[in-house]
Every structure is written in structure tokens, then in C-alpha cells.
């Protein structure tokens, strides 16, 4: 019987329920020192002077590090635009500036954490405050304070799409919907704050045990900043307490490595540990980008979308992080999974003195999905058409051209997905087309239903190098007794390691308990790429399948042990043409639709999510229980985004610095009923047909909820989160 499609027990489950799984903060090494970071805590300033003498004089403080101690004082996932430590004395211009409150200025290493914290408070920093800019539209204007003067502008990324003739398109339109939408920031609020331990291993490598999403990229960024060869750095991921994109960019990786390097130069070869507090975590890592969309769409009387014009503005915050990639996604997805003959998109990523924004589940997709689905729902309303009927007439088919002038890869299932979602939620197909269900009344409340859909890439996009490597060793004599699978793919909670083992067992035809996984240690496992872009099952599966096949061939040829290292490379993608946007953006996609029934209390403004249907084409559910777990978790996270989570920064200072001021859903806040509908329309190049799926259920929830609220209240809300206050204000019940 195939092991693919079985809900086997997670490989890490028992260690986690016994409290034996070690997270970065649980690593204690003999003779360990402790480190604290001096954060800027101001949004924009020049560091005039740093006086470390009082800190250094404190008994128990071993070393204080500042910008002068960083060999190459820059890092970043795509652009090296962020100093490791901000301060004077650098070779690179403008590294003496802090640009958001979480910029790091000094490191204090001491015998214990308490002393390190005291030492940090004794570091005197003299600042000259600079004017700040906190609104991306202000930041785009001439004369705005420049975050990075060397770049000459706060706009650091832009894309455009030009398809067809936009003016001709609008001339053909019988109805036009214009809108401006704003989407909020969101904090990942993974339960495990950033932490790590660094030391020199027995081969003299600087070794960092940390939670991240891409061991090899962490390693390379550490090596760059320390100006040492990458093979002198080793990154190990232990158990990781959630990520959701918030661990893609560096947090404590480089500073830990720097600390042990500088200590060793002073003859002190001791491990260093750091654990961020929740507040440090909240100001110290990126958020989901707030976006502004200015948009105008037109459709004909018979229900065809003929033109879409969108301006997309992403608040990048103080540094680039993944903005260029997030904006790339948003640029593509802001016209939805629809075939539109005339498209005009201008997208901008802009520096501000807010916390840098970056990767978060959906990666620009949820924001664009909100704008596109709101526009589509409003067009349907204006035409007097059922929203499902209207969508069905415009959704992309096999071979239809995207806004970027090329078709989606084969295996386009969005119409089937929307159909399945609508039927499950109670829509019916009548002679006159799709018809929405009646929503039961609830005493004293207003009720409504909404539906939205989305597409999302699987894997790296727009020409980014994309590959994933697996190593498989087969041991034994007559039979394969033991299999060693080496893979760097990170386990951040999503179940990747479990499905790796399942896929290896299937590819080799051995029971799962014969597979030993050596995971996420750059000393042993090769580059897998990141856990992001819903890519790991897809990419790891293909790498494991390739390695298994080669290893089995060697086994047949009597090699003992039979060892194969195999790198999977998917079909190539290409970057946007700078003028037209023409490109082959992605090699695979997942498709999703959600229908939501809500009730709204007209007195309190409170919204309850009564029923949610999520139809998600996952290609093939390798482990159905884990797939449903992703759907359920994504929906609750997206429900928080739509209704509850309200990340507030004022003049670059975060007001919501704790989990009692930044609220995420508790067990009392979850939807009443969630029905996952797992669809399996195989991806032609996915392993066993699997598509990626971790982000997809997140994507259409906010627009589905807000369309349902419109259905219940008669009011469109173009901004969220829909907190009770915002609802009452929208309904004119409070000023």
C-alpha cells in the first residue's frame, strides 16, 4: 500500500509532547556567555558617538561590540542595505544611521543574562535625530527625508505591466468600479521568540544553532558580514517554534557569530547565547507589508472583465528585506486569477521609517487578493450578477494568458476549485446560472455570505535561482536495512520532516521506520532553498525522488552503501520585462476558494465567523492530516488578519509591543465551523502530483469575510481589520 496519502504520525510529535524537543533557547552549553542587544528605539537618527566604557567596566561584562567590530557591516536577503550594527566608524557610507526602532547599535556579552542587560543599559549612545517619514505616499514625494541617501530615492523597487490597450478596454466597459484599499501590517507572533547559541565546533567552524527558514542563506549572510569563507560557518536548526515568513530575514544569526569570533580573537573560546524577549521579537523582526491599492476595473454588461488598472504601493519599512519579491507577487496577483485583455499595473516598494516589512504567509498575495476580489465582487454587484456566476465567466483556463502575456503552467484548476467551494457552501446551478444560498437568520444579528478565490505560486518566482538537493544513503547487504536521508529543508511546524520521510519511503519502497533523517545542518545536508513560497513539499519531494532513483540504480549495481546526491531544478522562470512586464513568472501554482458565512451584531459591531468552506487544490495530499492542519491554521491566522490583529506604529514607534496589546486569536476567537475540502488535481510536475499548499488557504479569507459582511450589513469596508469599532463607525453608529 502506498505511504503517500497516509496520515502517518509526525516524526517530531512524541518529542514535542514529552517536552524533549529542543528549541534554540533550550540549548545550554558548558561555560556559556549571554548576550543582549542595544536597540535604537528611535525611528531615524545619526549615531554621533557610542560610549561603551561604563558597560565595559561593569563586573561580569566580557565584551561590548559596536559597528567598528563588524568586518563587512551589511546584510540583507536580496540587497545588502542593512548594517549589522549601526554606528560610526564604518567603511560604508551611512552605516552610522538608525532607520527604525529595531535597528541594533551595540552588543553586550556577559557572564549571565542579567549582567548583559545591565551592561546594555550602560552603553551611552549619542544621537542626532533626523526627520522621519512613516507613510509610503509621503515617502514617494520629492523632498521627503531619504532613508538611504546613496540611493537617491525612497522608491527602491518598481514593476509595471502593460497588456493590451487600457483606454480601449475602459471604452468597452459598461460598468466601472474604482476603489482605494488599504491592508494592515501583521505581526507573525510565532510562539518562540528569536534565540540562538553560537560556538566553535570541533572543526573550527563558527556554528550557530538558531531557528530560521533557510540554513544555507543564513550561513552565506553570516559569512559575508564576517568576511570569512562560507565553509567556515555552520548553521544548525533545532526544533523551531513557528516561522510564517518571520524568520526568513536575519535576527540573531550574524550577531551571535560575530560575538564568538571577536571573543576568540581575545583568547576567549566560550559559547554565546541570546534569547530575545517578546518585545524585542516584536520590534526586531519584519511584519507583513501594509499595502495601498488605487484601482479601476471595467466589465461589460454580459459579465466580461475588459480592463484593470492598478497602482500598488507597498510600505517596505526601513530596509529592503523581501520587498522586491513580495511586490513582484503582488504585481502579478493584483489582477486576480482572471483573464483580462487590457491590464495596466504600476507597483512601488518604498522605504519608510517603519519596521521593515517582509515575508509573511502569502507573500504579497493576500494583499493583492483582497484588492482583486473586492473589485470583482463589486463589479458583480454592479452588474446584478451572482458573484460565482461572474467569476466563472472570467477565471483563467488552461492556456489563457496572464497579465504578463504568458499562460499558467499546465494543470490549471481554479474553475473546478471555485465550483467545488460554491457547491459545498450551498450555491446551486440553475437555468439562469449560479445562485447564492439563503443564509439563515440568527436572532438579533445580521447574517451574510461571501466568496473569494485566489492563485498562488509554488516555488521561487521571476527568474530567481531555484533548486533543492537531497542525499540518500542505502545501507545493508541483500536488503536495504537502513536509509539515511540528508536534507536541509526546515521544519518550522508545518510537518516538512514528516513528509520528507514519507516521500523517501515511497520512492525507495521501504517502511518509514527504516528512514533516518539528518536535517538542517549545513555540515551534513546540502542547500534546499527556504521553507517559503509553499515550495518545500514540491521541491523536496522532487529532490528526494531523484536521489532515491539514483541510489536504487547504484544499489542494483551492487554498490554498498549506495549513495546519491540529487539536485532538482524546476522549469525556468523569468523576470518582468521592465516596460511591459512580460515574463514567465512561475513554474507551479496552487488554487483555492473560500466561502464564509458571518453574523454581525448591529449593537456591538462584533463579527462572528459562522461557517467557512475552504476548497484547496493541493494536487496530492501527501499527509492529509497535516494538510488539513495547514488549512485550519491558515484560516485562523487569516481571520486574525481580517478581524482582530491591529499592529499600531505611531511615528515609527510600535504601540503594540506585547501579546496583550497586539491580540491574536485565542481558542475563544476561532470560526465556529471550518470545512476543508481537499482537492487533488495533480500538478503535472509535482512529486506524486503534489502542489504547494501552506499559504493558499490564507489568501482569499479576508475578502471573503468582508464580502460576507457587506452581504450582511449593506456596507463595503475597504480597510481592515474589521474591529467592532471600525464596524460601528462604518455603520454610522459611532462618529
Amino acid at each position: 500500500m502506498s505511504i503517500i496519502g497516509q496520515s502517518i504520525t509526525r516524526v517530531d510529535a512524541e518529542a514535542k509532547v514529552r517536552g524533549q524537543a529542543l528549541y534554540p533557547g533550550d540549548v545550554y552549553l558548558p561555560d556559556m556567555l549571554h548576550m543582549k542587544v542595544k536597540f535604537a528605539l528611535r525611528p531615524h537618527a545619526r549615531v554621533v558617538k557610542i560610549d561603551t566604557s561604563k558597560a565595559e567596566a561593569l563586573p561580569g561584562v566580557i565584551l561590548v561590540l559596536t559597528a567598528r567590530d563588524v568586518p563587512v557591516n551589511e546584510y540583507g536577503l536580496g540587497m545588502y542595505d542593512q548594517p549589522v550594527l549601526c554606528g560610526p566608524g564604518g567603511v560604508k557610507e551611512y552605516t552610522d544611521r538608525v532607520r527604525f526602532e529595531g535597528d541594533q547599535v551595540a552588543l553586550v556579552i556577559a557572564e549571565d543574562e542579567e549582567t548583559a542587560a545591565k551592561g546594555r543599559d550602560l552603553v551611552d549612545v549619542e544621537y542626532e535625530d533626523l526627520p522621519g517619514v512613516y507613510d509610503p505616499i509621503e515617502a514617494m514625494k520629492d523632498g521627503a527625508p531619504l532613508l538611504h541617501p546613496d540611493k537617491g530615492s525612497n522608491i527602491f523597487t518598481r514593476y509595471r505591466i502593460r497588456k493590451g490597450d487600457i483606454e480601449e478596454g475602459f471604452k468597452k466597459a459598461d460598468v466601472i468600479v474604482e476603489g482605494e484599499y488599504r491592508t494592515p501590517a501583521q505581526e507573525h507572533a510565532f510562539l518562540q521568540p528569536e534565540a540562538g547559541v553560537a560556538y566553535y565546533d570541533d572543526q573550527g567552524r563558527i556554528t550557530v544553532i538558531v531557528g530560521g527558514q533557510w540554513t544555507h542563506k543564513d550561513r552565506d549572510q553570516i559569512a559575508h558580514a564576517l568576511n570569512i569563507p562560507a565553509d567556515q560557518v555552520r548553521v544548525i536548526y533545532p526544533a523551531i517554534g513557528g516561522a510564517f515568513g518571520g524568520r526568513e530575514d536575519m535576527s540573531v544569526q550574524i550577531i551571535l557569530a560575530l560575538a564568538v569570533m571577536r571573543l576568540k580573537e581575545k583568547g576567549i573560546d566560550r559559547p554565546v547565547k541570546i534569547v530575545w524577549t517578546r518585545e524585542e521579537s516584536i520590534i526586531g523582526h519584519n511584519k507583513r507589508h501594509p499595502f495601498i491599492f488605487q484601482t479601476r476595473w471595467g466589465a461589460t454588461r454580459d459579465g466580461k472583465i475588459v480592463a484593470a488598472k492598478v497602482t500598488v504601493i507597498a510600505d517596505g519599512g526601513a530596509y529592503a528585506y523581501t520587498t522586491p519579491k513580495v511586490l513582484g507577487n503582488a504585481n502579478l496577483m493584483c489582477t486576480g486569477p482572471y483573464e483580462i485583455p487590457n491590464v495596466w499595473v504600476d507597483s512601488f516598494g518604498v522605504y519608510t521609517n517603519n519596521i521593515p516589512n517582509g515575508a509573511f504567509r502569502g507573500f504579497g498575495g493576500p494583499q493583492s487578493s483582497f484588492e482583486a476580489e473586492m473589485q470583482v465582487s463589486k463589479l458583480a454587484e454592479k452588474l446584478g450578477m451572482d458573484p460565482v456566476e461572474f467569476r466563472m465567466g472570467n477565471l483563467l483556463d488552461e492556456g489563457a494568458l496572464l497579465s504578463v502575456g504568458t499562460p499558467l503552467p499546465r494543470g490549471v484548476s481554479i474553475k473546478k476549485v471555485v465550483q467545488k467551494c460554491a457547491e459545498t457552501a450551498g450555491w446551486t446551478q440553475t437555468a439562469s446560472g449560479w445562485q447564492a444560498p439563503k443564509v439563515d437568520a440568527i436572532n438579533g444579528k445580521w447574517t451574510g455570505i461571501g466568496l473569494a478565490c485566489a492563485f498562488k505560486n509554488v516555488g521561487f518566482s521571476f527568474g530567481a535561482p531555484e533548486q533543492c538537493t537531497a542525499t540518500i544513503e542505502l545501507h545493508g547487504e541483500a536488503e536495504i536495512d537502513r536509509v539515511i536521508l540528508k536534507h536541509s529543508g526546515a521544519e518550522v511546524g508545518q510537518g516538512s520532516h514528516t513528509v520528507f520521510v514519507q516521500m523517501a519511503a515511497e520512492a525507495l519502497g521501504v517502511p518509514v521506520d527504516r528512514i533516518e533523517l539528518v536535517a538542517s545542518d549545513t555540515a551534513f545536508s546540502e542547500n534546499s532553498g527556504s521553507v517559503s513560497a509553499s515550495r518545500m513539499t514540491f521541491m523536496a519531494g522532487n529532490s528526494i525522488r531523484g536521489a532515491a532513483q539514483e541510489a536504487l540504480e547504484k544499489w542494483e549495481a551492487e554498490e554498498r552503501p549506495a549513495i546519491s546526491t540529487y539536485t532538482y531544478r524546476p522549469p525556468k522562470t523569468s523576470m518582468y520585462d521592465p516596460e511591459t512586464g512580460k515574463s514567465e513568472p512561475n513554474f507551479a501554482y496552487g488554487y483555492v476558494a473560500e466561502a464564509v458565512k458571518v453574523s454581525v451584531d448591529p449593537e456591538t459591531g462584533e463579527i462572528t465567523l459562522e461557517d467557512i468552506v475552504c476548497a484547496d487544490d493541493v494536487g496530492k495530499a501527501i499527509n492529509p492530516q497535516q494538510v488539513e492542519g495547514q488549512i485550519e491554521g491558515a484560516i485562523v491566522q487569516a481571520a486574525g488578519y481580517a478581524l482582530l490583529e491591529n499592529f499600531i506604529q505611531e511615528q515609527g514607534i510600535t504601540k503594540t509591543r506585547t501579546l496583550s496589546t497586539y491580540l491574536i486569536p485565542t481558542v475563544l476567537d476561532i470560526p465556529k465551523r471550518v470545512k476543508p475540502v481537499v482537492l487533488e488535481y495533480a500538478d503535472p510536475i509535482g512529486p506524486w502530483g503534489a502542489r504547494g499548499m501552506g499559504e493558499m488557504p490564507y489568501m482569499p479569507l479576508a475578502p471573503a469575510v468582508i464580502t460576507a459582511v457587506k452581504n450582511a450589513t449593506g456596507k463595503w469596508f475597504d480597510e481592515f481589520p474589521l474591529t467592532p469599532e471600525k464596524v460601528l463607525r462604518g455603520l454610522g453608529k459611532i462618529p
Partner: protein
Amino acid sequence: MSLHRITLKVNGSTEIVDVPGNWTLLQMLREKLALTGTKNGCASGECGACTVIMNGDAVNSCMVLAAECEGAEIITVEGLSKEGQLDALQKFMIETGGIQCGFCTPGVLLSAKALLMRNPNPSEYDIREALAGNLCRCTGYNRIITAVQKAAAVH
């Protein structure tokens, strides 16, 4: 900081610990007794990851001073299994898929255990109320509720 000598029972065994007066129970468990199954998610009683059972009640161990624990009986996640056998709550958390990243899991298990110790037949609402202080960012909670219901059924 002067040290306080505290005698308490942790997972059934008597421990004598010298701790600074400003240390929390959470710090003592992790730093002195090497019980790192109890997690620190916020150190301010907001996330529930550090939940343990103290004298029969679920508490946020980050909000209890170690010095208050003289004579107390503490159960941590390491004390849930008996002779290596998983507690029903642990078993059903695995079976229902109530675990993803696992960082909230120890606290969730202890909140649920305290509930079942005082109320062997909880309603769904009782379960939600007992878990209201335990944040989970991965699972969406439903499978956790199911796990507690199943454990209650065999309790």
C-alpha cells in the same frame, strides 16, 4: 541578589534549590532543574507557553516567584508520562494532529491536565475556557479541543 533555599516537589521528586529572590518559577525550572520542556514565550503571563500545574492549578510559571514555591507540588510536561507511558492527553494530541511547531504544546497539555484533574467531564465550553490563556499560532485550535475531549472520554 541573595539566594533563597526552597524545598518543593517537582514531578513527584523532592528538590532543594537555591534561587535568587527575583527569579520566577519558570527560570528555576529551566535554569536550575534543566526542565526545558516548560517554554518562555513572553515572560509576562500573556501567552501560556510556560503553564505548569502548581498545587493542582494551572499557573503561568513566569508569573510565580520561585520563592513562593516553598512546599509546593509542581507538575511540568516532563512529569505527564508515567513510567515512560504517555498520558492520554499526550497520546490524543499526537493522534488528532494538535501539534505543529510544538512550542505551545507543553503549556496546552498542562492547562488541559489541570482541567481534567478538577473536572473529568468537561463540556466543550469548559475546555475552551481552560485553554483561553494558551496561545497557539499554528493549528487553529480545533484539533487541540478534540484531543482534550478524547482524553476526557478515557480519563
